[in-house]
């Protein structure tokens, strides 16, 4: 359950940055690369609990997934990777290798984890 540690960092960094933005926080939208080993469900649960007593209490945590993209230093390929798994009930994962020539690749997207935006409503008191 390392999601709690991640959400703890998130709240600690976000609250001071919102100080200059009045209003009620409705949603915190996070973008998470698909290579990150973090459960969306656990992130949302952790957020609900750890946000209590902070400016973010009652806001929704929304987790959007960022697909993996790579570039190949050998052949110049840029784009998505091949996948492993995906049959039956198994989800598939990206294979970090060039789908064109098989060389080792650089990961351009898929490892990020950041707050994209926060949605605020203009009143700071109403509940609805």
């Amino acid at each position: 359950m390392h999601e709690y540690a991640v959400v703890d960092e998130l709240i600690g960094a976000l609250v001071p940055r919102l100080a200059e933005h009045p209003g009620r926080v409705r949603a915190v939208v996070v973008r998470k690369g698909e290579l990150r080993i973090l459960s969306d469900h656990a992130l949302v649960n952790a957020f609900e609990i750890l946000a209590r007593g902070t400016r973010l209490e009652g806001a929704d945590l929304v987790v959007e997934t960022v697909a993996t993209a790579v570039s190949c230093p050998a052949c110049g390929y840029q784009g998505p990777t091949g996948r492993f798994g995906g049959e039956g009930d198994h989800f598939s994962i990206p294979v970090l290798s060039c789908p064109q020539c098989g060389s080792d690749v650089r990961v351009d997207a898929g490892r990020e984890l950041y707050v994209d935006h926060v949605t605020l409503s203009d009143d700071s008191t109403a509940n609805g």
Partner: protein
Amino acid sequence: MHDVRFTGEDILARQLELAEANYRRLREKHVRSISVLGAIGSGKTTLVEQAIDRLRGRGLRVATIAADSAGDDDHRRFLARGAKSVNVNTQDDCHLDAHTVDHALDALPLEEVDVLFIENVGNLICPADFPLGADAEVVVISVTEGDDMVRKHPKIFAQTDFVVVNKVDLAPAVGVDPKRIVDDYSAVNPHGKLFLTSLRRGEGLDELLDALGLGCTSTQW
């Protein structure tokens, strides 16, 4: 309603900065650092124990950071092998973080160290998102955990470049074919390196240490 947009700084930026500081600190002292993680009972501690002996034979001085939820059993084992060691208890935390490693480094005489092993808490999943600042990361699993370990944790293995499959001497007894693990790993990570070991017998360790670049004295890095 209105949106406040952010610059895309990583949520774990503070951790990443601390990890980079650890990395620079170890580099400046010419210490090569290896982070060892893996499931409970896979053989992480035995790997480090054997590496202490083996690297001493190669003229290298080894230090260790031994992390466990509680106790100092691993730490004592490393001290008994003649390594400088720091014990870290993470208590209820399921992973080490860069901040804890920074404090542990304060307690080590880095000028007298060539190679540092950081043994994480026994846990295959949680440590993966917390970089410590080590030069290389080794994931240790064993055949007794089953031959489907890679298939069950593909994301970990897709991003781990050094994998040790330990206790291969027990494979027949537990009905596991190590080749299945090898094949799965090469499918999820075609550029990674996998080592079949029997660490209690010291088998397969030299190949790993060579691949980690721990082949000679510290002047090389």
